[in-house]
């Protein structure tokens, strides 16, 4: 086998191979992870206040923060060892088996595509709300967001993530500016936390509301695990991926805490729970036009950064499915000039557009969360199997996470709680989704798998797993 060592801009002639380009550094990994997630502070997390009250939103912010810290730790270990596009998909293929990998890739594509749809809807609705003109609909803004970002992704990963880095940083800084301009150290002047959150309304539904709030608490951090999709394009995955993911997680925990504090101190929980743009509203309620406009722009930028990262991730997961013939190999084409999985990007574009036109924000978010939680359940079991099949010392790991198996157990328990939370209010949607995954799994196992080459799927240069 000849191994193509790729350099940027190499012309492709007859016998050559085209593959994705290794150009990214840790900052891009951070931009991909935080870029996707940060929009959750601008919309979505606050629906947890609707489900359980303001205090419930704070409790889940921390508890779900713990869930995601486990996700980030587990993911860093596995992905610094299995560094391939497709991220968790390639992990599942090497550790659990083909059918699991197929499902994980679908979780990824669904979670990211629906997140992209939510971002586009948020952006469209925010502009329409700002304009306040009768007859202006959000469709044109949705179309522009999805198409322009698909084009950016089509043209190359480096520019895509450079753009993401800049806009994510601006959106993040705007949260920090908002936080410090409302004098967070003195309550009463602008912030009125103790008058808005009283013992009587802090937990309006009691503890069951706290559990129900888990569903949207996920939205504070959903997508941070997407950093692994860049594995094949990062210059040194074993070092950059854990570093970028952990830095991203710390950044997000700080942002989530600041966002809760400012929003809870400015709005009654009933309003906080239903507004599509809590931070923009917070900007308005400070009375400063400067802050209002800053947060308006930041909401748009966060939505753009997120949709951008989602297109990147969903396309890579779909691409990997094609490369292993889990789906027709047609999807595994790499653009010879831009080195992107261009057919996958183009294929997912109309699907995202269609859902952005027919679904509403709340529903798209729920679809995305559901696929996310299914994936985290898989991750908790996956790490246990990984440590059992290849114990420490049997292969070289880029990063080894501490306290194993505690993070895996914590993650698993929190997933169970989240399923129960989704059941409270969105139960039939959950059953419909599982039915879909079940049927498509049957299709894959009994029909589609016959087109897959067996031994070739295992591409890592590892020793034989223990117990086989």
């Amino acid at each position: 086998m000849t191994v193509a060592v790729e350099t940027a801009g190499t012309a492709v002639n007859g016998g050559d191979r085209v593959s994705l380009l290794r150009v990214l550094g840790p900052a891009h990994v951070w931009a991909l992870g935080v870029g996707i997630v940060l929009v959750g502070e601008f919309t979505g997390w606050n629906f947890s206040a609707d489900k359980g009250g303001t205090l419930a939103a704070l409790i889940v912010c921390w508890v779900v923060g713990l869930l995601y810290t486990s996700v980030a730790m587990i993911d860093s270990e596995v992905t610094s060892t299995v560094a391939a596009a497709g991220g968790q998909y390639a992990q599942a293929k090497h550790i659990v088996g083909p059918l699991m990998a197929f499902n994980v890739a679908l979780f990824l594509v669904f979670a990211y595509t629906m997140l992209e749809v939510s971002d586009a809807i948020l952006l469209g609705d925010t502009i329409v709300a700002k304009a306040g003109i009768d007859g202006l609909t959000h469709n044109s803004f949705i179309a522009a967001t999805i198409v322009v970002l698909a084009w950016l992704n089509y043209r190359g990963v480096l520019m895509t993530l450079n753009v993401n880095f800049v806009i994510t940083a601006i959106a993040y800084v705007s949260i920090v500016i908002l936080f410090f301009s409302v004098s967070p150290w003195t309550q009463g002047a602008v912030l009125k936390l103790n008058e808005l959150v009283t013992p009587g309304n802090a937990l309006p539904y009691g503890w069951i509301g706290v559990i129900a709030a888990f569903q949207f608490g996920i939205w504070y951090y959903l997508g941070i695990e997407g950093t692994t999709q860049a594995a094949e394009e990062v210059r040194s995955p074993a070092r950059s991926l854990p570093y970028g993911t952990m830095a991203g997680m710390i950044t997000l925990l700080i942002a989530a805490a600041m966002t809760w504090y400012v929003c809870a101190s400015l709005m009654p929980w009933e309003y906080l729970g239903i507004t599509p743009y809590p931070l923009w509203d917070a900007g308005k309620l400070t009375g400063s036009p400067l802050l209002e406009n800053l947060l308006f722009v930041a909401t748009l930028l966060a939505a753009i950064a997120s949709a951008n990262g989602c297109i990147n991730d969903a396309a890579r997961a779909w691409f990997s499915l094609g490369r292993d013939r889990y789906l027709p190999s047609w999807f595994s084409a790499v653009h010879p000039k831009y080195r992107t999985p261009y057919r996958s990007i183009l294929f997912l574009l109309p699907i995202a557009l269609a859902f952005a036109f027919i679904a509403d924000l709340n529903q798209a978010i729920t679809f995305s969360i559901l696929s996310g939680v299914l994936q985290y359940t898989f991750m908790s079991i996956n790490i246990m199997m990984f440590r059992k099949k290849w114990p420490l010392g049997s292969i070289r790991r880029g990063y080894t996470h501490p306290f194993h198996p505690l993070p895996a157990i914590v993650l698993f328990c929190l997933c169970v709680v989240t399923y129960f939370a989704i059941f409270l209010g969105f139960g039939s949607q959950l059953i419909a989704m599982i039915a879909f995954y079940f049927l498509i799994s049957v299709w894959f196992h009994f029909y589609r798998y016959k087109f897959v080459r067996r031994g070739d799927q295992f591409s890592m240069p590892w020793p034989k797993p223990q117990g086989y």
Partner: protein
Amino acid sequence: MWIALSYACWGISIVLALWMLFDWFKVDTTYSEGVLTSSREGELEAVSEKHRI
């Protein structure tokens, strides 16, 4: 102004979508399917990382 922006958005979307379709068509007719789908998982790892302790 917002209405104009809305039309501009439709315009940009259509232009970029057509450009992508055109580029797709160009690439698919210029290169053989074998070259386009020649990417393999784990190629770099096979050379750079031996996983020996």
